[in-house]
């Protein structure tokens, strides 16, 4: 699976929109982009997954350009409780036995 690169850390204030960009230059045709959120002393939590264009759910939006070499996780109007580590992964959900490989993630700090 393709490796991903994302910023180590980001800072924001409550009420702002936060965009975290991830690059995955070697993404394969069968691969999806998946984002997880992790709070201290908890396991990661699935946020959103997409293949191309735009995906939106109640938590976030995921933007994927046509070449799929990068993606952007968008968190609208963040609050203090959005302070967490966010991981961008390339995943192959339709293929049995594919393990999730995590990088270091992006630590998002939200201040009041």
């Amino acid at each position: 699976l393709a490796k991903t690169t994302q910023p180590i850390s980001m800072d924001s204030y409550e009420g702002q929109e936060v965009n975290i960009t991830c690059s995955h230059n070697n993404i394969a045709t069968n691969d999806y982009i998946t984002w997880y959120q992790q709070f201290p002393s908890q396991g990661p939590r699935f946020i959103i997954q997409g293949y191309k264009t735009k995906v939106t759910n109640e938590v976030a939006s995921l933007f994927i350009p046509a070449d799929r070499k990068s993606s952007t996780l968008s968190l609208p109007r963040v609050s203090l409780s959005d302070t967490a580590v966010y991981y961008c992964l390339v995943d192959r959900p339709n293929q049995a036995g594919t393990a999730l490989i995590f990088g270091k993630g992006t630590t998002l700090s939200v201040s009041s």
Partner: protein
Amino acid sequence: DAGVTQSPTHLIKTRGQQVTLRCSPKSGHDTVSWYQQALGQGPQFIFQYYEEEERQRGNFPDRFSGHQFPNYSSELNVNALLLGDSALYLCASSLEVGTAPNYGYTFGSGTRLTVV
């Protein structure tokens, strides 16, 4: 619907000892993966079990072994503990094959292992 349950939540062991960590997957899931997360790092893949067989393994020594039971629950065993084995151990469950774009792993809250 219960999520992933791990036990114990915390554990302190002495160097050289052996430890067993336990995981009950989310109802309906058949695949269990184990991860080690050191402080400040992302989770590192240890191995994955499906149908009671180890299907894939990360870059971990043979001191790390596991087992999956017929009810899909799993154990992680670590022998000859080293100080460097101190970490949060996470169990994740999933379906063998998912349906994107809403396919994800469900993680437990982990077992915090401290080796002294």
